Each structure stands twice: as C-alpha cells, then as structure tokens.
C-alpha cells in the first residue's frame, strides 16, 4: 500500500534542463502522508524501546532496592532540592542525573519490568544481535526506491539512486533517512564524455528487460540509468526521447519510433 510500481515524474524547470524521476513512492496524498508519519513514529518508538531494553539489561542493576546506599539512607539518588525548588528551568530536566533517574523509574514501572523479564532469558550475544538488527531496521531502513536522471544541456547528465532497503548501502546513511531522500548515490557525466544514450535489452534473472544506458567515452561498461528499478519499456522510451531532446535537439516530427516505427 505504501509503495507502488515504478512510475515516472518529469520536471522541466527550463527548456534546457529536465529531471526524470522514477520512484516507487506513490503520490503524496494526505492519508499517505499521515500513514508515513505514523510509520516513522512507530519506527522511532521501536528504536527507543530497543535502546531502553539494552539499557536495563546492561547498564542499570536489576533492582534499585538492592543497592546498599539506597537502603541505608532512604532517599532517592538524585538531590532532594529538585523537588523543593520552585518551577524548574526546562534545561534542568535534561541534566544527566535527572534523565538517569527517569530511566530508573521507567525500569521499575510495569512495562519496564515486563521488558526486563522478556530479555532476561536471552544470552547477551543474542540480545545484542537482535537489538542491532532491530535498530538497523528501525532507523536506517528506507521504504521507497527513487532514481533520477538530471539532464542539463551543455553540461551533462547526472544519475542519482536512493534505493529501498538498508540506507547504509543506498548512500546517505542516517542523515538520508532524517531528511527524506537526501544523500543519494550520484554520478555526473559531462556532455563531452557522452558518446550515446540508448535503449537496450538484457537478461536479468528469468526475464529480458529493457534498460536505458549511457555510453561513456573511455569506459568499458555502459552506465545503466535507473539500475535498481529497471522500469518498463514505456517509461524508458519516454525518458530516452526526453534525454535526447534535451541533450541534443528534438528530432524532426514523424521520425523514429512513436508507437510504430516510421521511416524517416
């Protein structure tokens, strides 16, 4: 529901510039925005829970009552003046001691105890591995793949890929997640290096797929545009025609492929 089949957006800020974006992200309607926001909140709270579980297991002692100091003096480990002083400045809540006490209180609460009971039987290595995986999923997993091709006449073309899945691989890292689609893996090819832009077919898995490729001078392999999504022929042809029209000049009317091959 949150992703769709790859589809194309074309942006033409000026006659000599065009950006072709192929993405699995559906159009951002209000319900979708809300759903994505809820999903983000869910992922953040999942991350927080995992971190908290790690904290209760490895950093605090299991129960604060066993601590000898607390039994002797019968007062909480943070200074009493925090209770007595009149309205606190907001920064006072963020002091390490206060935060620690908050965590202690949480650990002592019913959900905290429950979490501690849940994690207790797991051996430490398994717990760390599990929480690592969960943290990675919660913080760094990207939902949509977006690939784009920016064409600037006289300058060149730039490909960009932001892949779904582990954001560390797709480029951008944590910052990419925070910003949204920031920090993709990009590649710029100057015009004088471009020999040709063409559509080709290749075997991929159990299929034969169309792909758009840029032949770069001095390189043995072609640069595949939209390498992750490999959109279908319809999109690839639109982009190809757009790129050639933008990079060079628009072909004369009635020439080339337009649903049906024509002889020029």
């Amino acid at each position, binding site marked *: 529901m949150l992703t769709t089949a790859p589809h194309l957006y074309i942006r033409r800020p000026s006659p000599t510039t065009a950006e072709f974006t192929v993405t699995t992200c559906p159009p951002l309607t209000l319900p979708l925005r809300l759903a994505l926001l809820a999903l983000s909140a869910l992922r953040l709270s999942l991350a927080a829970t995992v971190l908290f579980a790690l904290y209760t297991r490895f950093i605090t002692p299991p129960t604060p009552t066993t601590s000898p100091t607390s039994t002797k003096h019968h007062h909480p480990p943070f200074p009493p003046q925090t209770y007595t002083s009149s309205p606190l400045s907001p920064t006072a809540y963020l002091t390490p001691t206060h935060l620690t006490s908050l965590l202690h209180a949480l650990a002592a609460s019913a959900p905290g105890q429950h979490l501690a009971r849940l994690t207790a039987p797991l051996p430490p290595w398994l717990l760390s591995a599990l929480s690592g995986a969960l943290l990675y999923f919660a913080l760094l997993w990207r939902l949509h793949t977006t690939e784009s091709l920016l064409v600037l006449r006289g300058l060149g073309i730039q490909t960009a890929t932001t892949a779904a899945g582990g954001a560390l691989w797709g480029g951008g890292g944590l910052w990419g997640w925070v910003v949204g689609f920031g920090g993709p893996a990009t590649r710029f090819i100057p015009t004088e290096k471009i020999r040709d832009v063409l559509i*080709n*077919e*290749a*075997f991929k898995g*159990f*299929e*034969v*797929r*169309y792909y758009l490729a840029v032949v770069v001078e001095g390189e043995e392999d072609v640069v595949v545009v939209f390498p992750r999504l490999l959109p*279908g*022929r*319809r999109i690839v042809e639109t982009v190809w025609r757009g790129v050639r029209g933008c990079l060079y000049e628009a072909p004369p009317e009635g020439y080339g*492929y337009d649903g*049906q*091959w024509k*002889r020029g």
Partner: protein
Amino acid sequence: MAPTYNIAMVSDFFFPQPGGVESHIYQLSTKLMDRGHKVIIITHAYEGRTGVRYLTNGLKVYHVPFLVIYRSATFPTVFSFFPIFRNIVLRERIDIVHGHASLSSLCHESILHARTMGLRTVFTDHSLFGFADAASILTNKLLKFTLSDVDHVICVSHTCKENTVLRASLDPLMVSVIPNAVVAENFKPISNPTETASHSFGHNPPPARQLGPHDTITIVVISRLFYNKGTDLLTAAIPRILENHPNTRFIIAGSGPKAIDLEQMIEQNVLQDRVEMLGPVRHEEVRDVMVRGHIYLHPSLTEAFGTVIVEAASCGLYVVCTQVGGIPEVLPSHMTVFAKPEEDDLVAATGKAIAALRANKVRTELFHEQVKTMYSWTNVAIRTERVYNGISGAISEADFYGYDAANAASWSATRGRSGVQSFALIDRLKRYYGCGIWAGKLFCLCVIVDYLIFLILELLFPREKIDMCPDWPRKVVDESNDRKDGMR
C-alpha cells in the same frame, strides 16, 4: 494476402560458430523476413557474444546464458529454460517455434515448452544418426520424446527423412523434405565476370576450360577433420592417388582432431610439396580456396545433406564423393563421381574423375548456372512457409497432407481441426504415453511437471507485466515473384 507469422528459431548452434546448421538458420531466417515474417533466433551465449543482439539485417538474436557441455551443445536441464523462454516468446508475440538440429537440447526443450504454452512447433533435422551405439539410442529416445508432440518435421534430404521417421517413430506424412540451399552468388567460379554479363543477352554458354594432358590437377578437400567426415579414409587414399597420378596435388582446409594423422601421413610419404594444409578457413574464404582446384573430394562417412558439395559444384568443381546418406540426392550425376566409402573405391573414383577431366569430357564451367537454378534459399523459405501455413490451418488438411491422408482411417486420432494437433493436455499425454513402457510414463510425468511450471510462471510473472517488443517494419511480399520462385 498471405498470413504472416512471428517465428522463433531455436538452436544451440548459431553464429559466431561456423557450420552448416548455423548458416541454414541464418539464410532461412533472412529469406523468411524478406517474405514479411518476423523472425528471432534463440541460442545460447557464446564467448564474446551474449545478451540480445541484432544482426545487420534486423535479425534479432537472444544469446541465453547457459552452460555448454560438448561441442557447443548445452546441458540438458529439462525445465530450467522455461521461464526465460516464456518471457521471450511472450514479449516477441511468437506464433511458431522452429527448432533445429537433433543434438541441441535447447531446441528439444523449447519445443516441449512451446507446446505447453499452446504454440505451433516445427523441427528441422539436419543430421543422420545410427541406431546401435549407446549415444545414438539415448539421442533417439530424446528425439522421440520431443517429436511425440510436434506439429511438423522438416528433413534436409529423403535419406534424412527415412532416418528420422524410424528414429522417432513418426507418421511419414508429417515429415517434409526441404533441402538446404547455397547462395550461388557467393560461390562463383573463377571465370571472368564480363562473360556472365553478356551471357543473358546471347545465351552463349561460357567457354570450356581446356586442360592439357600435363597440366596440374588440384584436388580440394574442405571439411572439419573428424572421424565422421571420413578423414581416415582421406589419409589412406591420398598417397595412393598421388602415386597413381603425377601432376596432381591436394589442398586440404579445415581443422579437427584428425589433422595430426594427415600431417603424419604427409611426413611419412614426403608429400610436403604436393599436399597443402591450410588449417581452418572462414566460411567466406571457402570459395577462394575452392576455385583453386578442379576436383572436390568429399570422403564423408555420414552426411544428411552435404551443402559443401553443392558449394563446390557451384564453384565449377567436379565432385568426387562417397555414396552415403543424403549425398546421392544432392547433385545430378553429371557433376559427380560416386564411390563406396572405402579406400580402394575412393582411389578408383578419383582416378576416373581425373581421367574424365584430362579428356575434357566434363563441362564444369556450366555447373554454376545449373546449381543456381536448382538451389535457392528463397525457394527453401517458400516451402518452409507452406509448412507453417499447413500447421496453423491456413491451408486445408487435404491440400497440405494430400487427399488420401485426409480421408484415411489410420490418420492419427489425436489430430483435430484440419490436421492440426490439439493442445489439450490429455491429448498431449496420449501422444507421449505411447513412447514406451517406462519412457511413456516418464515422459508423461515430465509433461505434467512442465504444465505445472507453466501455471506457476503465469502466477509469478503475469503476462500483462511483460513488456512487448516493438516490431520492425515488415517487408511486403511481391506475389508475382512468389509464383515464379515457387514454380521452380
């Protein structure tokens, strides 16, 4: 307006590898495209030739990545080819799958899958096989499996047809004979070209090539040097021929495991100045080698058709060949001297040919024109097209198979409308079941599994998700040319 088809030629053997099957597929495809059909070729990946390629005339070739096991035949994995085959067939909107060569597992598999997908299939057999040794028995069983459910079979010669009908237990009515052809323009004799230009004007035959009694006669052999090509026979015959006939010499082109035997023979008999070994030659250079000689010697032990002797005759060479397989059908008797496939007879036949040439009894300069009228790829394409029309029901059963066949009670019960084989799974199973006590059941199992895979593929890769290929503009056929070529 004749119907046109989208045809997929499937074989393990295709360019860049040279050979008879390869050039047959290429020439046939080219001529079928000239007749307005769409043709693609599916073969496996060769080194440096992978992916999807276009040849210069717009012929599309899919080099499917597959494991090659023996002499560029792929490993037979009955089902693994299906997903990609289905994808190709759907995106190219194929109607007819045409497999070539009985040693190609790619071809057999695709015929099976094509029938499962409900397509018409044709198989062309290019080679003869024995019945006795283990490899032949296995191949024959495999052939029987595939050909149990094929719409039509094409053989390159009548001998080949006989052989295939026996090997695969086929109804002879569903086997056609369509010979190979040669591109006569590529095999012109050495005589000056201005002569042929004025030729159509005055209908003068080219002047005879006179041979003096002491002129050197050159004997050409072009073949891959394998056992089945009769290289051993050649090794034994050469010293005797050269001994009996002074002023003769040999040119041998080709490579293979038997080349070493030939070289040893040359060393032993000190024939370095009379036998020239050229090593492998490319197909386009064959003509240049041939025109250096007067006699073409073809010692093959088994041959379904023997395109090379047609090429030699087209170059104006007198042909000496063994009387095996389909060879006697290929050329008229005035162009050839036949020998039994044994040393003495081969030496004697070569002697006869040399004597005939020395006596200037043979008009080799006329051979080219004669071969040109006998063999043309356009004609092959027209006849193949007729087969396509027959199996897809465009021409009636009585027309295609003959009137007796249409009425005969013995006519296969599983045939449906106008002699066209039914695609229903139960009918297909019936056909496979008759293949043998155990084999029949095994084959049925394979077919059922294949059908299940087909259903799974339909779920996993739905048809509407597959990109369709745009068609090239098709050529328009000139019907008047048609009639002229067809009547030949």
